[in-house]
């Protein structure tokens, strides 16, 4: 269970690594743990554009389907093709091999609205306390 300090986080449990105006996106340790064994990933198409908060991918565990939201607005420039048939990477290495897609940001300043590791851990701590 870890939440690297170099990443930014969303309320929908995605993580974002910003390098220049490109963001790499995946789901957090907490999100993969809640989903359970992930067996299918429907990733966005390269070249498609999303507003922040749009559904842009789907993850299916054995039990259920979850939407993944675009954490920031922009255009998909790359998807993690290695996930095809190896979706368990999202469970095993959510911040590494389990990355999902990259976005060319249309509003790079919006990164400032995302949570840092401390704020995100407080959020999931509150969620756990409420459940």
């Amino acid at each position: 269970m870890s939440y690297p300090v170099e990443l930014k986080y969303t309320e929908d449990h995605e993580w974002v690594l910003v390098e220049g105006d490109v963001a790499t996106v995946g789901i957090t340790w907490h999100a993969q743990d809640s989903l359970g064994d992930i067996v299918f990933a429907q990733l966005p198409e390269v070249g498609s554009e999303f507003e922040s908060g749009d559904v842009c991918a789907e993850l299916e565990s054995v039990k259920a389907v979850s939407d993944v939201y675009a954490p920031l607005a922009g255009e998909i420039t790359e998807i993690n093709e290695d996930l095809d048939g190896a979706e368990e990477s999202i469970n095993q290495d959510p911040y590494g091999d389990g990355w999902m897609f990259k976005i060319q940001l249309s509003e790079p300043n919006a990164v400032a609205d995302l949570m840092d590791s401390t704020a995100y851990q407080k959020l999931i701590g509150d969620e756990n306390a409420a459940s």
Partner: protein
Amino acid sequence: MALRQTVFHGDHIQAGARMVDFGGWHMPIQYSGIIAEHVGVRRGVGLFDVSHMGEVRVRGERAEEALNALLTNDVSALPPGTSHYSAMLNERGGFVDDVYVYRLAADDFLVCVNASNRDKDFAWMVEHNPLAGEVDFVDEGDSWAQIALQGRHAVSVASELTELDLAPLARGAVVFGDFAGVEGCWIARTGYTGEDGFEVFMPVEQAQPAWARIVEAGADHDLVLVGLGARDTLRLEAGNVLYGNEIGEDTTPLEAGLRWITKLDKGDFVGRDALIRQREAGISRRLVGLEIEGRIGRPHQPILIDGEPVGELTSGTRSPWMGTNIALGYVRQGHGRPGTNLDIDVRGRIAHATVVKPPFFQREY
């Protein structure tokens, strides 16, 4: 309302299980993970807490007669010490519940019912008991803890926990004795997973220490603890229906492929007239197995032919054992032949599917 806890609740917490509300019970949905648990059962043996299941005790000289008036299967075909799958229907031929009937003695039966239907079933049985005063129905749901040991090594593990000789027991047999240090258990060679195995009813007051003893006995056999998540994927691979998904008050055994537990010639039972009418008129839909290409089907997703809806899915998952996407669903009569090509509307995307005859998984030992 506070969630109910089985006597093994503390063991689940200690084992790090993820707990959920299931039919009013606080139950383990998974321990190590659904896939690992599922594969553990298929490879070796798994231990399940199924104490949430309900039990109704039926006793009396004429108990067989009373049950035959309530249930679809023929209780008179059941010798003492055996069990079978059966169903209880409403007057429209729909399922009140699907049940397992254990004949403990000539005049003594234990009917195992779904947790979510327990109160409804018991009330229904009492209300429709044709021999009230002669045959007693008692809700013993609070009297029994229940575990399941399932998998090819279940017989090895179970045999270490009792003096009884379990290995020669036939499928469906039920015997009485000590199990895992608990006196007065009923041990049945039954299960819901498609594997060999046992389901054990234990007097609830003494049952709690049994869990740790079973885990200890299973240590040499790679025993896995199994939650409700893998229980569901195991039953789906085995082609077993689940109340609330495939069957309910508005589906009949003829539609659900459960004609084999429906003995229309045995004499009258609640729902029989409706089934005879349905048999004569012909069923309009039937439950089929499906293999879906590329996508995972989920309950209520539409089944299409040439873009026209012909039914919907009732259950679906990625099979943890075979890796294929398996599902059950109802299709209009005429579209259910194995090999038929259909489409599934998976949240707006069309996935191709083929009708296959369940079970998806069959054990080879």
